[in-house]
């Protein structure tokens, strides 16, 4: 048996130097480790920044509803409430729409519709959020406030969530703009999930005489629930952290109101809105703590998303498949 060392001694060659390889490996290793450094920096900086406020209010900060920078009272509840309500509503609006659109694109649309439609959805995803905000602020919110909201109030006004005075910029408008932002994400993620279903299952259902919808329901949707949940979580993660589009339509009030037609605020929009005004240390520290809370919430939703989509899996190697 000829091993590599034997070949080398036969050829009387010096073994190639490994110095270059080792240095290169070390360099790339350092770069890969940067993601951990970044994660640590993120956590450390937010903790450091919010130290004052953590010490003063502790975690009770999260359930205090009084936010009054004037007299040094800081409670995060209005921001957390606004974030959860607008994201949850946004997801409720976006999920059925995106699922139906994904079903149409993957199971029903002819090829000449599918390609351009997918391209357009990508375009919607590529529109910067500040532009969505601009449009939301000057076009969407005033229109919603003038037409659909009064109708909603007329129909369901006895419910406190649809009661009170109607404002264009409000929590519900924020939910709608958030829905518009996350629809492309959920649609394309669920398309991927549906695409992963092998065609043989569709064919089996067709062979049994199933109609188009029955094929979709039995062969495609049934096994895709995990993936759909993951896609929804991914969308939710985006919704929770959306800043610019929300800040321009949410109204910016830090008072919790039961009505969806009342202005509110979210964690991300609150930070963006008040950070430059925060001149004293305590105020700034409280805003850092909002950032910390936002980071924790998005980490949890993203972990859930990954558990269900399995997106962390390695890309398949060509040569090894």
């Amino acid at each position: 048996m000829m091993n590599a060392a034997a070949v080398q001694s036969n050829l009387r060659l010096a073994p190639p130097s490994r110095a270059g390889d080792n240095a290169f490996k070390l360099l790339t290793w350092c770069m890969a480790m940067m993601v951990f450094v970044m994660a640590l920096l993120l956590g450390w900086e937010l903790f450091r920044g919010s130290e004052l406020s953590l010490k003063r209010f502790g975690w009770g900060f999260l359930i205090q509803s009084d936010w009054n920078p004037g007299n040094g009272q800081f409670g995060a509840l209005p921001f957390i409430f606004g974030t959860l309500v607008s994201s949850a509503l946004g997801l409720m609006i976006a999920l059925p729409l995106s699922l139906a659109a994904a079903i149409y694109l993957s199971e029903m649309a002819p090829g000449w519709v599918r390609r351009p439609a997918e391209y357009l959805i990508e375009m919607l995803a590529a529109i910067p959020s500040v532009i969505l905000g601009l449009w939301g602020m000057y076009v969407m919110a005033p229109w919603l406030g003038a037409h659909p909201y009064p109708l909603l109030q007329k129909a369901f006004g006895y419910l406190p969530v649809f009661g009170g005075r109607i404002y264009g910029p409000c929590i519900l408008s924020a939910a709608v703009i958030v829905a518009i932002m996350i629809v492309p994400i959920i649609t394309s993620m669920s398309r991927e999930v549906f695409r992963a279903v092998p065609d043989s299952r569709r064919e089996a259902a067709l062979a049994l005489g199933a109609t188009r919808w029955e094929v979709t329901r039995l062969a495609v949707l049934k096994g895709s629930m995990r993936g759909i949940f993951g896609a929804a979580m991914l969308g939710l993660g985006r919704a929770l952290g959306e800043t610019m589009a929300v800040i321009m339509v949410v109204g910016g009030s830090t008072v919790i109101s039961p009505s969806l037609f009342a202005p509110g605020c979210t964690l991300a929009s609150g930070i963006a809105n008040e950070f430059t005004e925060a001149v004293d240390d305590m105020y700034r520290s409280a805003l850092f703590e909002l950032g910390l809370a936002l980071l924790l919430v998005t980490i949890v939703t993203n972990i859930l998303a990954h558990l269900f989509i399995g997106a962390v899996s390695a890309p398949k190697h060509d040569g090894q498949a």
Partner: protein
Amino acid sequence: MNPRRNMRRKAASAAVSTFCFLCALIVLLPLALILFHLVRLGASSVDWNFLTHLPRPVGETGGGMANAIVGTFVLVALAVLIGVPVGVLGGVYLSEFGSPRLNWAVRFTSDILNGTPSIVWGIVVYGLVVVPMKGASAFAGGLALGLIMIPLVIRATEQMLAQVPNHCREAALALGIPKWKSVLHIVLKTARKGIITGVLLACARVAGETAPLLFTASGNQFWSHSLSEPIASLPRQIYTYAISPYDDWNRQAWAGALVLVLFTLVFSALIRVLARGSNNPAAK
């Protein structure tokens, strides 16, 4: 089978198909409305002056966003300088050297970082750079965008490198080429097109970011002459103008938005052309 029941099944199927079709239309409706309003309200204000002049003080009509347009390019260039070396080499480590367990951890962390709201990066870079440097700067803004880019580029690079057939690597090693040379000259070169596409997609993404720039690059109504000065950027300028009470600024916000959208759309169209044939899943 009972013919009436069959009719009902077919009707249900047709109803669901129609419903799904309508939903697909509703999903695309905002895109159409946004583009329509951008053109309607912005097109008349986009002219040569707008693209080549500095903003005018409040009260004077006219002026443009030249500094913001250039500022956006500067910021994205800084982000590329920071994000691409780290991202590409990190991706090389994952694909060429890493162990499965460490790779999993790196991928997982990058995906979590990817999901981190950009406003959070804004305040973190504020604390790390702006406070010690005692002022907002182009450098801080570029760093914030670069940090957002790193996980995007790592993932894209790894994906592209995975598509390079192993026999290329083996052939290089069989010729006695050191691994680092084979990675640089053969593996990376083969995957070049895909990696560039991934980097450009990341650029398109950060170019429209506003939130991380609010407190890091701040804004500037004039040209900035050094990277340690605050710098204007298109998204930030749009935001400032949009929420201002002045009609002329609101008008310019729409014009700026139209320019930004055209940039992003033309850019992503270019990326698609470039990506054709590179097997890039991101551009399918």
